[in-house]
């Protein structure tokens, strides 16, 4: 093990300590916020893999999140809960009888999403650019429509209620850490180098003997897997899911996060995911009626989204590469930074 590994381990240890402390001393609302932060870190980092590192404008994460959420939810619910939910059309057998522990259900959610990634990957990567964006966007819509209409599987627009809130800080942050660790390790490997080469010039990458289809498909499936797991976590955090929760709007939020963070930067995705989740809460104020200097401002629902979109515009105009560009946090970088600061102090 090198110093770098020990430092990484140290950070994970600190995080574990933090999670432990948070579970003990923070109130329910704050814990919920931290759970949200972790889930969005998982989703954003996965999205950044395909969208930022590979440079493919994939607009369908909401499809995979839906698949993961429904799969995991249907697997953790007890047969009695399922019977209580599916009043109009009963749930198909054998799903109606199965009940699995949460971790297995999460894994299943990830695998179902990855399977969907494998199947859709073939048509998706027949095209590139705007066409790829449209195909993936369409896939997101297809899944939403299916979720609305496959009553015997999803309970339609009514959705699934009363899920057991299995998602706690250990699960959400554990998955976030695992996702960041795996994706960072992959991006910093020769495989990641190939993905970046494909982003820069796919034709040249093929001329180098790289099977670009297989590389892209892999990144797409891997991101789908983590979208699925994230969806499962989200479902057991909110405890009530319905198709209206997973519209393109969710994808758009993730897109804002990774663009503002800096397309291609995992560090940026992590920071922006945390920032947006927290800011989204704090900005709830602007959607409620306000008294400012005796002036009454009625609450405007959706105002937060307007502000976020404005922020997105500003970032795109003034910081084209996002806040971090393609820079990443590294220990070596930190050392360099500190020594530079030290020299400044000395002089």
């Amino acid at each position, binding site marked *: 093990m090198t110093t770098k590994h020990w430092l990484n381990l140290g950070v994970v240890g600190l995080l574990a300590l933090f999670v432990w402390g948070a579970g003990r001393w923070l109130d329910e609302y704050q814990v919920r916020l931290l759970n949200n932060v972790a889930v969005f870190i998982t989703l954003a980092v996965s999205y950044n893999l395909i969208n930022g590192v590979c440079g493919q404008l994939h607009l369908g994460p909401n499809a995979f999140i839906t698949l993961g959420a429904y799969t995991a939810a249907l697997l953790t619910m007890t047969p009695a809960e399922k019977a209580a939910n599916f009043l109009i059309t009963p749930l198909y057998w054998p799903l109606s009888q199965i009940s699995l522990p949460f971790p297995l259900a999460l894994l299943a959610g990830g695998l179902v999403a990855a399977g969907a990634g494998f199947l859709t990957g073939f048509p998706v990567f027949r095209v590139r650019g705007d066409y790829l964006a449209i195909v993936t966007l369409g896939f997101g819509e297809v899944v939403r429509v299916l979720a609305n209409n496959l009553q015997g599987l999803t309970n339609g627009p009514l959705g699934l209620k009363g899920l057991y809130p299995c998602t706690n800080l250990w699960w959400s942050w554990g998955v976030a850490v695992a996702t960041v660790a795996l994706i960072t390790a*992959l991006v910093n*490997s*020769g495989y990641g180098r190939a993905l970046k*080469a494909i982003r820069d010039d796919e034709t*040249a990458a093929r*001329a180098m003997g790289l099977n670009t289809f297989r590389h892209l498909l892999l990144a797409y499936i891997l991101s789908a897997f983590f979208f699925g797991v994230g969806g499962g976590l989200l479902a057991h955090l909110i405890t009530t899911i319905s198709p209206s929760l997973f519209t393109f709007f969710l994808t758009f939020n993730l897109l804002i996060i990774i663009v503002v963070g800096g397309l291609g930067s995992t560090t940026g995705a992590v920071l922006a995911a945390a920032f947006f989740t927290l800011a989204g809460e704090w900005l709830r104020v602007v959607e409620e009626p306000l008294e400012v200097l005796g002036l009454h401002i009625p609450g405007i629902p959706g105002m937060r989204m307007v502000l976020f979109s404005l922020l997105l515009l500003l970032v795109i105009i003034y910081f084209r590469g996002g806040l971090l560009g393609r820079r990443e946090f590294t220990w070596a970088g930190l050392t360099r930074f500190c020594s530079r600061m030290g020299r400044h102090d000395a002089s």
Partner: protein
Amino acid sequence: MMLLETRNLGHSFGGLLALENLHLQVPEGALYGLIGPNGAGKTTIFNLLSGFLKPTQGDILFHGAKITGLPPEQITLLGIARTFQNIRLFGELTVLDNVLVGCQGRGRASWWQAALRFPVYLREEREYLARSRALLEEVGLAGAADDIAGQLPYGHQRRLEITRALATRPKLLLLDEPAAGLNPQETQDLMDFLRTIHREYHLTILVIEHNLRLVMGLCQHLTVLDHGLTIAAGPPAEVRRHPRVIRAYLGK
């Protein structure tokens, strides 16, 4: 034994016949030139040979085996590497990374072995790194190894693109107007460079070139094209006297 052969090769874009009846015979170890005015179909030939276009007619043989219609990445792995008329580097990667990408096409380690830093992956990476550094040293780009490829001076970008192609371990190297945009001194350096790699790496080189002087001095064989048709083929001394070449290409 011919390393590369095309039989009756042709390609049309929609209705436009860009190339017709090309019978190319490139012997092993040759420095072979393709010349012809703009729009003659030279780049189209390279796109056919490297698999980026599927011929609408005819066949391509490499080492006597048909490779017609194979995808570009497979053709590269068989031993045909190319450069592009408009340089196509991985502009945001470093010079070293560009060459490393060239090395890794035949890699066996899978993605999870890479992510988990398995020995099989680490061994491959060490080998690529050693090979890339050695290549950069040989072509005189070692000092720029950590520079961003897209920010190199133009002449160095050309050289890097060739180096990256060499990293794929080709037997046949296709160079599309390597001297385009270079000044006379850089062109002279390039010629020397091409002769060196031709010798050192036991390469067969097929080069498209506008600069007649360069190509006459460099190549033992030439094929001259005009409007998709082969109008002459042979050693430079013969070709330059050919009346159709003088008429079509030299415009005299």
